[in-house]
């Protein structure tokens, strides 16, 4: 087998079809590890015409809160986020838990907020993950919103819907444990009612992410009022 292959190579070399030395591959100096190419799936989202590099503040807050809503819906949500990153072949951007934590830390409302900004590729990766996971949770999201509709039409407390009450409580707990209570943006949500409203808003947005064009719509909406 090996002999045959060597024979083939010799034949090609003789014909001059493959000339490794000529291509400079033989004595090529490698100074740095090869730069991993950005996953192709990111090209489905166009680059917005932003005045400065990095994602605007609202986009960073939005992405983090949507991920938090997914975690509130799904108990194993944080694990699912990492698995989805693997499934969508986004490891070059999100290699692990720490990178994900750093990316979500760009939300300025966080307790351990990162000073760096979120790059567009990172934001695209998070957008795709949110849409993928929300699509998996479509049935639950629709049930919760339908229940919310019925309860609010009858002016009943939201806790009457067991599953909805569970979601709201988990969302409030996650929000309070992760957000810096001294920030003005967080002080605005200092009551259960305001946090419930935020949780329902995020649930509604997750519903719109579940659609056929969900990623494109979510991606576009992140830059509303920011592009020039």
């Amino acid at each position: 087998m090996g002999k045959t292959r060597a024979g083939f190579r010799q034949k090609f070399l003789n014909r001059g079809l493959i000339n490794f030395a000529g291509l400079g591959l033989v004595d090529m100096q490698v100074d740095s590890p090869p730069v991993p190419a950005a996953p192709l799936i990111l090209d489905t989202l166009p680059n917005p015409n932003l005045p400065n590099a990095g994602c605007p503040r609202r986009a960073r807050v939005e992405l983090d809160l949507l991920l938090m809503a997914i975690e509130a819906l799904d108990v194993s949500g944080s694990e699912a986020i990492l698995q989805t990153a693997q499934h969508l072949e986004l490891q070059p951007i999100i290699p692990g838990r720490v990178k994900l934590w750093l990316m979500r830390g760009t939300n300025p409302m966080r307790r351990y907020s990162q000073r760096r900004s979120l790059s567009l590729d990172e934001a695209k990766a998070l957008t795709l993950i949110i849409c993928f996971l929300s699509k998996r949770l479509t049935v639950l999201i629709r049930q919760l919103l339908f229940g919310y509709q019925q309860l609010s039409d009858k002016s009943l407390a939201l806790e009457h819907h067991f599953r909805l009450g569970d979601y709201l409580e988990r969302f409030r707990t996650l929000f309070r444990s992760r957000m810096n209570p001294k920030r003005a943006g967080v002080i605005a949500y200092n009551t259960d009612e305001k946090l419930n409203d935020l949780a329902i808003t995020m649930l509604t947005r997750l519903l719109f992410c579940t659609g056929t064009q969900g990623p494109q719509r979510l991606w576009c909406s992140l830059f509303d009022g920011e592009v020039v």
Partner: protein
Amino acid sequence: MTVQRQYILPNCTLLVEGLAGADGSDPAAPLTVVLHAECQFPGIVMPLKGGREFLDGLVQAVSDYAQSILSGVPNLLASREAGSIVTLEPNGPNRHSVTVRPTTDEDKGEPQTAVLTTVQFFDLMEAIDQLLADTQTLPELSLPLQPIPRRNVKPPESVAQRAAPVVVGASTLVVAAAALFFIPIPDLKPTRAPQGNNSQRQEQVELDGESVPGTTAQSGEPLESAAIADPTDPIAAAAALSQLEVAAPAITDEDTLAALQSDLVDRVESELDSDATFDDRLIYRVAVSETGEVLGYKYENEPALTQVEATPLPSLMYLPVDGDRPLDEPVAQFRLTFEPDGSVTAERVDDDAP
């Protein structure tokens, strides 16, 4: 050939009827001409219907409205757009009302309206997305997705709110300027810098030190501090005297001078041993304060320097408490002479001829 396409979702059914292909012979040809479009919602009796214009308006309006739900940023341009026959606006916390104006050619008069729940609206949007993704129906119809430019977004604060800080700042400045206008400008009196005084004094001391042979080696030392450290040192006492010469005004009153002169002689004689004798005449220049304290003395001849311990001058020397502060009380200067036989005389020294 008339073709019907249906996009069925749990809460919305979108029906598009039209002609496929130019000649109608190819069954796989895409639907390109819309004759009729209809939206049905369960629980709402009247479906929304219309022609191509209705469908185009619906695609645009639903897309814009969905984007504003996702971002929470209202689009000023979309709400102002009068050209579209379909408008969507929020109706209460969880309701969205769709209004379809009658087109001019149909002329039915009454606009069609429907109030949708969020889930129903989402299904409408999803039906439209599926229609757009369907290459067999209206392939030229594309999704008009664009982020809203900055200029089309209503600023979160009104113009009056944004102008308020500027106005408050400017008016505060005006008020402060008006108040300060009535305060007179303080006239600045030039004061003698203490640093300059010190250096001048130091120079004077050094000059004096050089004038006496045998003391040149010590003249470079910081004499001022020595004067405070050891009042018995003749060099230091001389420095103190030099300080006084520079800084202190002279006493000019004749009576005071005479009194101080006799007082000085009395005090020195009382301190001096009665049987003291000197090899030579000892001549000192002495500065005395108004109260008779000896503030400084200086040798005038060589024996005066070597035999200063035999005179009572070191013990009479007054040590100022605060050595750093220059003395500015008036002084009188006398030339004090110890004769070899032990007698003491004092005579006035004029400032002009020391």
